[in-house]
């Protein structure tokens, strides 16, 4: 039908333009935001609290009974790993003491009898290409609580810090914010009036200058 008046969109479509533009822009921003937040370790990892084979309560043992971390995690001061204690360690006490619900202890007893390990689920799980060394930190005044939170208040352990690379770097760049006297490392409740002042002093004292080289953690 040549010659008919050329086609144009009706006037009312003009009002749509702004609307469409707005929707697109907002949509994009929203998507970006959701991804950025959703993918951050803050969201994915913090608060991770898996079921454990034994409902072991740090709150009871470390908190109420005030057992030192090192009673169970013996290797923390010598080795890279703060080893999970062998069943033996539990039985040291629990052979005699059987307070509380004893069903809870059944897996432990079984393990002790059979020699088969208890399969604990890992809470603080770094990627394979990250090499973290506990001894290097606890011996220089980095408290357990700084990374693991107030474990002594946890019924069931969960992750409180993102354990992301940026989070590590924050401390490696400004250690004074977290340093504490070495003797206080295992003191869960340690607080100080002025962390920064103490921190700087300790940084001098212990000659702490954390490396931010890649090979410090990645090998």
């Amino acid at each position: 039908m040549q010659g008919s008046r050329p086609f144009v969109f009706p006037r009312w479509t003009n009002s749509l333009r702004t609307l469409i533009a707005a929707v697109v822009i907002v949509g994009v921003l929203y998507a970006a935001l959701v991804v950025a937040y959703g993918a951050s370790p803050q969201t994915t990892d913090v608060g991770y609290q898996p079921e454990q084979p034994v409902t072991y309560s740090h709150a009871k043992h470390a908190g109420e009974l005030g057992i030192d971390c090192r009673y169970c995690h013996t290797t923390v001061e010598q080795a890279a790993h703060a080893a999970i204690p062998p069943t033996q360690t539990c039985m040291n006490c629990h052979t005699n003491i059987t307070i509380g619900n004893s069903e809870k202890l059944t897996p432990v007893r079984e393990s002790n009898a059979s020699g088969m390990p208890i399969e604990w689920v890992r809470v603080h799980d770094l990627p394979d290409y990250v090499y973290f060394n506990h001894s290097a930190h606890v011996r220089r005044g980095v408290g357990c609580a700084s990374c693991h939170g107030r474990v002594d208040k946890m019924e069931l352990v969960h992750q409180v810090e993102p354990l992301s690379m940026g989070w590590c770097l924050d401390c490696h760049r400004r250690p004074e914010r977290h340093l504490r006297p070495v003797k206080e490392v295992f003191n869960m409740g340690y607080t100080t009036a002025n962390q920064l002042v103490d921190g700087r002093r300790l940084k001098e004292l212990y000659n702490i200058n954390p490396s931010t080289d890649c090979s410090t953690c990645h090998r």
Partner: protein
Amino acid sequence: MPPVSGPATGKTYWRSLDELADTPEFRKFVESEFPNFAPELLASPSRRRFLKLMGASLAMAGLTGCRWPKETIAPHGSRPEGRTPGESVQYATAMELGGSAVGLLITSYDGRPIKVEGNPGHPISRGATNAFAQASVLELYDPDRSKGVMQRQGDQTFYRSWDQFAAYARRHFDALRADGGKRLCVLSESSSSPSLADMRERFGRAFPAAKWWEYEPISRDNERLGSVRAFGQAWRTHYALDRADVIVSLDADLLMDHPAAIGHARDWAVGRDVDEQGQRRGTERAMNRLYVVESAHSVTGSMADHRLAVASRRVEAVALHLASCLIERGVAVPSVGNALSRSSRPVEADFVEALAEDLLAHRGRCVVAVGPRQGAAVHALAHALNAALGAVGTTVSYTEEIEPDRPTHAEAITTLSTDMRDGEVDTLLILGGNPVFDAPADLEFGQGLDAVKTVIHLSLFPNETSQRCTWRLSRAHYLESWGDVRAYDGTISVVQPLIEPLYDGKTPIEVLALVIGDQPAKGYDVVRRTLQASSGGADFDTRWRRALHDGIVPGSAWPTAEPPLKRGGWAAELAERVRGGTAEAGQVELVFTPDSHVYDGRFANSGWLQEMPDPLTKLTWDNAAIIAPVDAERMGLRRGDMVRLEAAGQTLEMPVTVLPGQAEGSVTVSLGYGRTAAGRVGNGTGFDAYRLRTVAAMEVVTGVTLTSTGRRTMLAVTQDHHAIDSRVGRRERDKRLGMLYREADLEEYRRHPDFAQHAVHHLPLVSMWREHEYEGHRWGMTVDLNKCTGCSACVVACQAENNIAVVGKEEVDRGREMHWIRIDRYFRGQPGAPQVAHQPVACHHCANAPCEQVCPVAATVHSSEGLNDMVYNRCIGTRYCANNCPYKVRRFNWFNNHKDLTETEKMAFNPEVTVRARGVMEKCTFCVQRINAVKIDAKNEARPIADGEITPACAQACPTQAIVFGELNDAESRVARLQADRRAYAMLGELNVKPRTQYLAKLRNPAQPEVALPGLPKATHTEQTDTEHS
């Protein structure tokens, strides 16, 4: 029980495992080794997480949300005393090869041996190792290893338990006791184990009439025979190369192919470690001088100051001529006297004359060594010469031999196979070895074997021999066994297990005990008993524990003696042979050598060794007939051309490779390749030279014909690919060599100690970027080219330490080998008589690194300690860094190289080093994991790091200690002092990359006046090239 056919290959591995899993033994080992986890472990796809895991082991569960797979931690029920999960421990043990041992320290993680080091306390090792020892870890975890017990009935093979075998053995062998075991034979590898010797005696008592034979395809019997002829009794010869100023090697590869090679290399290097006056550091003595007369270009030959390439069968003529030259010069060579006439005058006259002069000038400070391929008479002559030159007592010493009067290996295997064929053998017990494959071809050993009713084979692998046996017993790897072995000098080491037998194996000792129903039957008890018997009772436990800890039994070395030469007819006979020898002049000879990858074939299934480039040919995954350039030219052959070799009625088709320095008319073929039942890795690699080997000619065959077939085959070499071999390229290579590999004669070095600095001149260098500053550490390395023999132990050590992948022949041919340290090998001078340059090249950790500037994602960056960090998990794989690296030391993961690894193989991984994924770049890190480990320990103990406390794997393995690593910021450290040495230079320093690795220039020590060698250029920096780089 259902049958499984043939040797368990990778394919049937899991299947057979399932079946094994039914046997109580297997369940036992699983539980003892991986409490409750083996099923998950062996089935799960988990990689080194499993290794890194602290407690004992780990199993993977499904994905939970968007998190990575859930990990579980399985701590011990009760932790063994002194065990710190995730920390490595070292144990001393020893590895035996060909009847003599090297002392080792094994690093073990959570009960998994992962790395082999030399034992500093051991007289031979002295902290160093060789490639074979380094690769033994991989062998331990090899999934193709023989598993449990198998019995062949008809054409079916059944899994049996050790109990079933024990029951059978009791019945079978008790029956044999009746006639004292007249029709019973034992064939064993040669072994130095006192316990085994003891068990052998007990066996002899149980079966007085039984025969015990000993066979090694790579034999040093000629040395024994030589000493018998010279002294009337077998003596073992020892060389103290550190005391020698002139070392003469007649076809002897002292630095590589000798039971004491590692020790020799260290001693020899002492004489190459010179100060700026050209004298050995801290002494007045001169640098040593090495003469080598040989046909094949050996590692020792490549280190020679003067090398004479003659066919192996002509070596005796040279030796004889040398003797007569000395006699002419008034040296009284005992028991030779005037037996020699000068009728036949070898062509190499002037070389020998000069050599004789040099020896005379160094009486008492020289050695004449003869190789195992030379006849007994030549050895006898060498003994006489050493005595005449006053070497005995200073540089040469003698000790007793093990079983001095045993038949030679050749005799043993011959008699045995005749007996077998004559049907005089009903039961044959083979302890290790692989005679079907490696016995002389004309014996047809395999057919003989079929004539024997019952053949029991104890073997690490289900190999060619096992296939023809009735019983296959899996042998425990030395890392799984209790045992004892003697070093070349007699020092006893206790072999202690690092891990429970993975595949339910037993040691020869245990099997013998089982066969003769002897008590105690456990290896541990037997070894203790033997040691107690030998070294007295009182306070034995303390000494036992000390022996375990130190890795040696102190004072167990044999006393040295100076046996008197006895007059013998050998001299005259030798002279006779030499005169006659001229008859076969012009004939082509074929020389058999052990292979640098697979030794006698036993290491054929080791990917690490297969892919290690041969020190001279740079060949991987293959052996080839090595021919001289002149012969190649005459026959129009080049690398990869298939030829037909015909010798003594046997024929073999194999490819040739052309090697400068190979003697004209001499073809060298290494033994041990062409395996058919080696396993997934070794099957179908290379060509079986044993098929040309006959009892009559075990070492050298003359009258060989070599005809081209016109066909070609691909040989994977890591250097000198033909495709790039253009004329311009070759000219440029020769031009550059003087700049890259700087060397000088000793004399010239004395005149200009700083010659290395003048090999390259360039404009002042200015950097575009701000230079790095280093407050704390500044790591650096030096490589002393004057010591490096190119033995390649470092290459395999690095592979073991850093989880470096094996890529296979095709990929190597594509130029995709993954080695972090490679040894560049160059020839200079005439193809007939070249000089060889070995130059190890790893990442130089440049202070002004080209790779760092171009990486778009900052995956390779400079550390505050001067390391060039490579961050695998940041790398996206643009390969820009590799392009821009002038040393070409960066390696890229073109594929997922670990895809096909079985779980057992993954157990060999070093948990301290990330296993690289597909698509990322990798390279030498100066073993940063070791650096950090030491740093953390030192900090924890609040002490400074001692010099030499940090040793990268390559430096640790190096027999000559050519590689030195340390702290450059400490002027007193070894490495700092070496970099201050005037021989030190930075390769490609003119690019202003500021490499942190420096080389110490090579020195050659030709005789003065220079011995005339055909067309040998004086190794000076005549190719002084001015160059600059903006």
